[in-house]
């Protein structure tokens, strides 16, 4: 049976202010936007699975990342290639730059923060334009091994770069990724979660935008047994512009969860979130949570979030929950849309009635579904790799 849920909620004003800073009190349950953060693992209770933040996640498949039982038994191998314009460093835990992009907002993120031994810092120096993409390849620790990681990408003022973050391999991985675009920087980060089928990854992404910074993020989730990614965008000054896109292709048995929070704390910032996913196969499961918080000071905010799911076969399930909290009426725009659709027999019939064979018709429909978003990937190799991966996914099930 095909199942899907769609929840929408929205609220205007009157949220109690609380939390948001290190070690502060937990926020009231009514707000999803104001979030408690801490670098201390014990500041977070061990989640049992019923909490709002965890209710969609199969806790057993977290392999102990959430309860302290997953000690590091291996390490991540990180390779950085590409533009010579970027400065690449491997640093220890004491490097004072670490953590400036954002603090952990759940127990796994805090666990990862406290468990990594070395971090990779990629810096695009001030006023530098990195012509070629910087590719950071992260190899998992191997089957049944656990590793924690930390990556920081920092685009200094008025710099410009595209970074590809390519996760591969297998194992159990907890990590934090800081993506910092300082004043007037233009930073694009494409993150590809293309693990082996056994892998578990819980990743917390912290984007931090300075004044007039332009941040582009493209998440691609294909592999893994369980992949859960939290992406928080913090607007630290006015004029920030974030476009957050994602595609996922969830196969039978996979759990892929994307949780977004656009935290508009400053005036005149823009955020646009678009995620599209296709699901196929027994117990394929995707979760998309799109939270937007527009704080009282964030006048002139313009935000939109959209999630669309295409359920290709019986037995797959998509959950999609957009949520908008607005604390000021002086905004340019705020909206969300969310949909879960079955693979459309009428579309297939129409294409087939023009002589197009079934498999090709199916490919056309799915490519069409992803098309507009894939066109936004400006790196040809990455886009082609994705298109090929999608074709391969379709051929594999061949329903």
């Amino acid at each position, binding site marked *: 049976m095909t199942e899907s849920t769609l929840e929408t909620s929205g609220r205007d004003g009157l949220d109690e202010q609380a939390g948001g800073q290190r070690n502060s009190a937990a926020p009231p349950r009514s707000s999803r936007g104001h979030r408690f953060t801490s670098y201390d693992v014990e500041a977070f209770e061990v989640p049992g699975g019923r909490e709002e933040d965890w209710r969609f996640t199969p806790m057993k498949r977290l392999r102990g990342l959430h309860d302290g039982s997953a000690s590091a038994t291996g390490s991540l191998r990180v390779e950085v290639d590409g533009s010579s314009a970027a400065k690449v460093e491997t640093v220890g835990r004491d490097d004072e730059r670490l953590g400036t992009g954002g603090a952990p907002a759940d127990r796994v993120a805090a666990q990862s923060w406290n468990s990594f031994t070395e971090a990779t810092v990629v810096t695009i120096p001030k006023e530098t334009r990195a012509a070629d993409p910087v590719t950071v390849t992260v190899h998992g620790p191997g089957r049944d091994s656990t590793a924690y990681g930390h990556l920081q990408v920092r685009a200094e003022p008025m710099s410009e770069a595209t970074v590809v973050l390519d996760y591969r391999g297998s194992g159990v991985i907890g990590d934090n990724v800081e993506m910092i675009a300082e004043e007037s920087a233009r930073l694009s980060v494409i993150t590809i979660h293309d693990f082996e089928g056994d892998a578990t990854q819980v990743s917390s992404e912290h984007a931090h935008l300075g004044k007039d910074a332009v941040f582009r993020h493209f998440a691609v989730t294909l592999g893994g047994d369980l992949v859960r990614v939290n992406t928080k965008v913090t607007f630290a000054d006015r004029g920030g512009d974030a476009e957050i896109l994602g595609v996922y292709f969830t196969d039978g048995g996979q759990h892929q969860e994307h949780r977004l929070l656009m935290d508009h704390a400053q005036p005149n910032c823009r955020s646009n979130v678009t995620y599209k996913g296709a699901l196929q196969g027994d117990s394929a499961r995707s979760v998309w949570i799109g939270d937007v918080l527009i704080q009282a000071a964030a006048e002139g905010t313009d935000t939109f979030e959209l999630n669309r799911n295409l359920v290709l076969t019986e037995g797959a399930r998509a959950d999609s929950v957009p949520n908008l909290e607005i604390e000021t009426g002086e905004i340019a725009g705020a909206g969300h849309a969310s949909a879960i659709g079955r693979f*459309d*027999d*009428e*579309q297939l*019939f*129409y*294409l*087939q*009635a*023009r*002589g*197009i*064979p*079934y498999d*090709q*018709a199916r490919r*056309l*429909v799915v*490519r*069409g*579904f*992803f*098309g*507009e978003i894939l066109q936004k990937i400006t790196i040809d190799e990455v886009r082609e790799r994705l298109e090929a991966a999608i074709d391969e996914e379709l051929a594999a099930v061949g329903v």
Partner: protein
Amino acid sequence: MATLEIKDLHAEVETEEGSKEILTGVNLTVSSGETHAFMGPNGSGKSTLAYAIAGHPKYNVTSGSVLLDGEEVLEMSVDERARAGLFLAMQYPVEVPGVSMSNFLRSAATATRGEAPQIRHWVKEVKQAMGNLEIDESFSERSVNEGFSGGEKKRHEILQLDLLDPKFAILDETDSGLDVDALRVVSDGINRYRESGDKGVLLITHYTRILKHIKPDYVHVFVGGQVVESGGPELADELEESGYVRFANKKEATVQS
């Protein structure tokens, strides 16, 4: 010369109250070079006949036969039927977001012709066909039928008819929802197709107005899921004058006799 023979065709559709028989034994033979107008009141099963021939999964053929030059069409998949030379211009063409009209047309032409048309020749061909139907060139980059008006969708159905050049065309209420100008443009397109060679046309319609543009060789009156009377163009004139009243009880009479 080609023939499309429909023999004692029965088909049903699943409804909430169970399966319901819509086609109750259709007999009809269309030969190439002929245009058959197929007329009936709403709910008589005209569209069901069109979809059943094309192979829509919603309609379940329970008995009977559809032969294209002696080959059993009902055993073919939807796309095989199209490649064998059948074309259905749909009453409600489907939107396919993200698939451009040009990509769609080229894929369809490649499939029905058995090889990809040469690009230079193809571009010219499409351009001319679009011009004939007064379709703006910008449509080729738009998603299939997405956001098209009713009239634009119908023009694009006829554009496909022109480019795919089937042996037989079933036109399901292609005239509905068209204003006078669009009706003329679409009718001209259908006439060009008829004149392009030995083509068979099954023109399904509720009203007679399109028959002023497209002269049928035969007219069939369809009531209660079967043909109750066949004749020449004069039958359409009678329907124009007096409507379907005379035929409404005819099926019962046929059944009782």
